[in-house]
């Protein structure tokens, strides 16, 4: 088992009557890209703030890199971009990074490398105020990368970026992960998490609903069949996969079936005289899973009342 570098235990933050984060226990392991997934206002940013010591938890505890959140032993080894980049508007991008390098006590020569990394080297001399949203966001990532931190905490790093910028940001994160960088990333974009994360924690309305690998979340593989006549195809599918594993979907039949059993299904359909137009793997998107889970949790909490 690989080393765990972030552990939280029952982390809770209450603002007045509002429970922003409720009993969140999550773990991040060294070397993985951990996706913290949830809709806006679910408590992602508040949780990340507590991990960095910017906000004190009302209850519960957390350990980052074996140290208390907010202690120099933890913070000095984390690079963070939390809820949008916070920089001096009148300083150039490069000078902003120089200020941060001085706070860290690392060499200012690291600044140019960080700017290069996020492709801002050409605009490093321009004042921060004049940057586009995407450039500001990239400067935030550059600042997080300063000093080669052991853990990178990125709160919605693709926020405000255009599609090309989003793709660049994802590529950068994948690249960093490839070099063994541990990344804790929050997002409300399912496709993004699905694409770049190893493990996912799903949070909704302050509660961590589940924590597992992307593969586990997506569940067993499924197959989509478009064939005629549909009713006869449905009967065959039920016989092969079992009655509960089959449903009508998009004018065809969708069944939970291991990929190895697809030939058996095809033979059954042909034998039954069904015309096959299409058989293809049909993966559940994280989106489907997410909506199922949040709906379930909403239902659960309504029943509690």
């Amino acid at each position, binding site marked *: 088992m690989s080393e765990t570098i972030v552990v939280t235990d029952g982390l809770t933050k209450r603002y007045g009557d509002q429970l922003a984060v409720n009993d969140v226990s999550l773990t991040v392991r060294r070397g993985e890209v951990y996706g913290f997934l949830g809709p806006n206002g679910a408590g992602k940013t*508040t949780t990340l*703030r507590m991990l*960095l*010591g*910017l*906000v*004190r938890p009302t209850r519960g505890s957390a350990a980052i890199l074996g140290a208390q959140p*907010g*202690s*120099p032993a933890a*913070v*000095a*080894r*984390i690079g*963070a971009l*939390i*809820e*949008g*980049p*916070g*920089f*001096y*508007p*009148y*300083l150039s991008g490069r*000078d902003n990074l*120089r*200020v*941060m390098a*001085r*706070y*860290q*006590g*690392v*060499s*200012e*020569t*690291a600044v140019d490398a960080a700017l290069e990394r996020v492709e801002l080297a050409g605009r490093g001399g321009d004042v921060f105020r004049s940057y586009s949203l995407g450039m500001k966001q990239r400067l935030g990532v550059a*600042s997080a990368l*300063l*000093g*080669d*931190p*052991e853990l990178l905490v990125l709160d919605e790093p693709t926020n405000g970026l255009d599609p090309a910028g989003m793709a660049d940001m994802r590529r950068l994160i994948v690249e960093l992960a490839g070099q063994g960088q541990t990344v804790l990333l929050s997002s409300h974009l399912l496709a993004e998490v699905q694409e770049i994360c190893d493990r996912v924690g799903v949070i909704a309305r302050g509660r961590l609903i589940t924590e597992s690998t992307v593969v586990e979340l997506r569940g067993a593989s499924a197959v989509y069949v478009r064939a005629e006549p549909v009713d006869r195809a449905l009967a065959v599918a039920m016989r092969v996969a079992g009655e509960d594993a089959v449903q009508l979907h998009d004018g065809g039949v969708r069944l939970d079936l291991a990929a190895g059993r697809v030939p058996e299904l095809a033979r059954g359909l042909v034998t039954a005289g069904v015309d096959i137009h299409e058989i293809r793997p049909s993966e559940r998107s994280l989106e489907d899973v997410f909506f199922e889970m949040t709906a379930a949790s909403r239902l659960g909490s309504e029943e509690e009342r």
Partner: protein
Amino acid sequence: MNMTRAGEPMSRTAGPTGVRAVAASTRAELLRLRKWPAMWVLAGVWLALNLMFAYVFNYIAYATGSGNFGTGEATDGLLTDVLPDAIPRIYTGGLPMFGGAIMMILGALAAGSGFGWGTWKTAFTQGPRRLTAFGGTLVALGVVVVTILVAQLALNFGASILIGTVESQLLVWPDVGELAQSVGGGLLISAMWAAAGVLIGVLTRSPAMAVGLGLVWSLVVENLLRGVANLISELEYVTNVLPGTAAGSMAGALGATAEGDGDGAPGVLTVLSGASSAALLVAYLVLFGVVAAVSMRRCDLA
């Protein structure tokens, strides 16, 4: 760990600690204060005000023989005020109210802006403890205040030497001890007001609110309270120990003409002795700094 030629680490696996950490934060803060146009505007405005009111206007009044602001004072008195040996008593005249207000704006902007810009959040996630990073800000502001006061001293010398030479006066240098006392007193007044600005900036978390409230307090409320204290004598116990009273009395004790004496500078008082006003200024300086640091250490940065 990779090391650069300068001996600084490339990675942040172990940040600096203790005094070195405060020094690192101070260097960081000095870089951003030095490049902040607002700092230069404030410093420039104060130096210009000082030059105008302490030297230019008095000299014009002397040269045109119109007396000091129409009071008909003997014009020779005006000339002695603008010569080098008068610097110790002239130096702090404008500081209790005008210089102090500028220093307070400086502190309030430096501390208050970071909340809206999100730069406190960024600074506090770089590695140093909050108290260390905030301590760096206080030290850096101290450096700015000292720099401004040194520039003011240089400007005063320049102006008085120029006037003395033009008027063919014998240049008599001020007593070094008196000069040091005066500059020290000026520093205390300025640092106290800057710390007050920092405190209001931290408490309000907004530069606009902090500047507004701070100015209302220093320019209006304290004077009103002193006015009321003339009617209700019990209130004097309070008004005698207000920050503005301490600042004004310090200037008064150093020889600046008090506001009650007709042509004295507004804000200059003779309520407290030099020693008590110095003690009170130090107490306020420490109090404001400590309260600001404690609330900064505890607050949630949401």
